[in-house]
């Protein structure tokens, strides 16, 4: 590596620091606002706790103790919908990805081979969800699925499957077949080989698919908005709803927003390498 001139080094660090500041400052603001008294939050901006405002934990107390059941209900709804959607999309996605990687398909009439099928699957991911607003509304009200966890889980499974299939197929393509072959020589059938040998070996791929599905579902807005009214409302809808009730209570919203993003951001930070891997698999092979 040749040495950089000093001005380049300075420019490099300046750019990096500047962008990190841009990324981190809003989160800092969210955090401090949740500890500000009402007056400190609605007047001129206050930046540093203890220096230009006295922090208070009353909003967190309100969120956790006073309105704890309401917060927990929406948090739980999100958790159920996102985990359910993740579980089914990972399962179905891994199966289809394995199939597309190990067998040769040729669909009659359309004359589609594996690549065509994979492309068709991933293309579903990019259909605008607005297309499904009307049919889902009608179908869900006829099936009494509106405002149920099951309804959301079905919708989230549907929109996560394409990505799951795409990543898992790519992952299985890179997995040597020798191990499952030898297992099958020893008498295991395809399904046992898949469950006992292939799935454990593909844990990294499964984890990255699971993270993506979970984050997508956790943050999802449109389906949750149209398919829930009260009982099954998820965090994004609950937070967006704070917009109109009793004016904008920034301190309360900040605390609520932090509760909603901390789990997902933590998952992201802890399992960072799986995310990058999934991103790369999704984009490079596209």
């Amino acid at each position, binding site marked *: 590596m040749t040495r950089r001139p000093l001005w380049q080094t300075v420019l*490099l660090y300046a750019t*990096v620091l500047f962008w*990190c500041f*841009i*990324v*981190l400052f*809003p*989160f800092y*603001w*969210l955090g401090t606002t949740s500890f500000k008294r009402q007056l400190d939050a609605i*007047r*001129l*901006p206050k*930046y540093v706790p203890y220096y230009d405002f006295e922090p208070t934990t009353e909003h967190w107390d309100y969120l956790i103790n006073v309105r704890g059941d309401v917060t927990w209900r929406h948090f739980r709804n999100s958790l159920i919908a996102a985990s359910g959607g993740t579980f089914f999309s990972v399962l*179905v*996605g891994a*199966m*289809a990805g*394995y199939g597309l990687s*190990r*067998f*040769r*398909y040729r669909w009659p009439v359309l004359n589609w081979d594996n690549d065509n099928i994979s492309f068709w*699957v991933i293309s*579903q991911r*990019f259909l*605008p*969800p*607005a*297309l*499904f*607003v*009307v*049919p889902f509304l009608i179908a869900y009200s006829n099936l009494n699925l509106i405002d149920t966890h099951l309804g959301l889980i079905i919708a989230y499974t*549907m929109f996560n*499957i394409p990505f799951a299939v795409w990543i898992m197929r790519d992952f*299985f393509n890179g997995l040597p*077949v020798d191990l499952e072959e030898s297992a099958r020589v020893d008498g295991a059938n*395809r399904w046992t080989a898949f469950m006992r040998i292939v799935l454990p070996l593909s844990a990294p791929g499964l984890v990255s698919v699971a993270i993506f599905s979970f*984050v997508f579902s*956790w*943050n999802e807005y*449109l389906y949750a908005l*149209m398919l829930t009214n009260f009982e099954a409302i998820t*965090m994004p809808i609950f*937070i*967006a709803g704070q*917009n109109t009730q009793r004016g904008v209570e920034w301190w309360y919203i*900040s605390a609520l*927003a932090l509760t909603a*993003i901390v789990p*997902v*951001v933590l998952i*992201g930070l802890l399992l*960072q390498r799986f*995310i*990058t891997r999934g*991103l*790369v698999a999704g*984009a490079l092979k596209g």
Partner: protein
Amino acid sequence: MQRSTRESKQEAAAALTVDITREDRVMKRVFLSPAVIVLLALSIFPLFWSLGISFTDVLRGGSTLEREAAMTGEEASGFLGLDFDVTLRNYERIFHDERLHIAARNTLFFVFVGVTIQYAFGLLLALVLHQEFIGRSVVRVIFLMPMMTMPVVVGYLGRMMFDSYRSPLADLYRHFVTWWDGVPLIGSQLDPTLPWLTDGSWARATIVIMDSWQWIPFVTLILLAGMQAIPDDIYEAARVDGASSLQMFWRITLPLLAPLSLTVILIRGLETFKIIDVIVVTTGGGPGSATESLTMYIYKTALTFGNYSYAAAISFALLVLVIVFATAFLGLGRRAVPRGM
């Protein structure tokens, strides 16, 4: 990267030839069917159903005929004895609906301006992150944070950052105004507030900024992965031949990144066509309908106004827009990307 892909493809091809036994003939269907069934039932079927609805007069609570029949007690008899009318009215209305045209223009603005900004900054940051410096892994983790954040929260963050009076940005601008007033010769008095979210064109730009804040890191991380996949010996060879770093960027990095760039831009473009949540919490589509997106208008038509058939029709207008965008972009891209890549 490319070699390993080829190897794995060969391995997969070798595996494909094993596919002869009867068990496998059954199992290959077992593996693929669940996904295909789910997609057929929850994606393809609703798609055609929605297309059908768009040619009818169905509102919330049934079609016009159904509601008339319910009121008068008569047997409904529409087209072919069905209980709704088949009509092109919804598609005619698309051409006269002023609000829809504004929503379409806004959406195209978000897509084109947003994706351009995201790609430009994303590429720049990827170039920076590709250099070696202290704390690189930490920075990469920090870059993941906006992507993981709920778009609804991004909207609230944006409102806190871009409030015309109480935000840190407004504070900064007030200091600037005071300072600018005191500058000799060119200094002048400025309005101490900026209409970040209250003026139509400002609000559109602010929404693009928020969306970009969230997605620039995504572009960066993917392009960075692409840059790291470019073998070092190409750069070595160029350096031996006396190429400057600018030449290396234009002649090596950018062309080799072209296929990946196309993918990233396409993904971001298609995703931005779906934009709704950030707008809902920041401006609610306002002022007026200056920031309303197509998805938002479709949602309002279906749920607030209860006009199911028209909502279905405009969602197909959106689909046409998306397909035109994707096809045109891929067509242009294929011409721009050198052959064999």
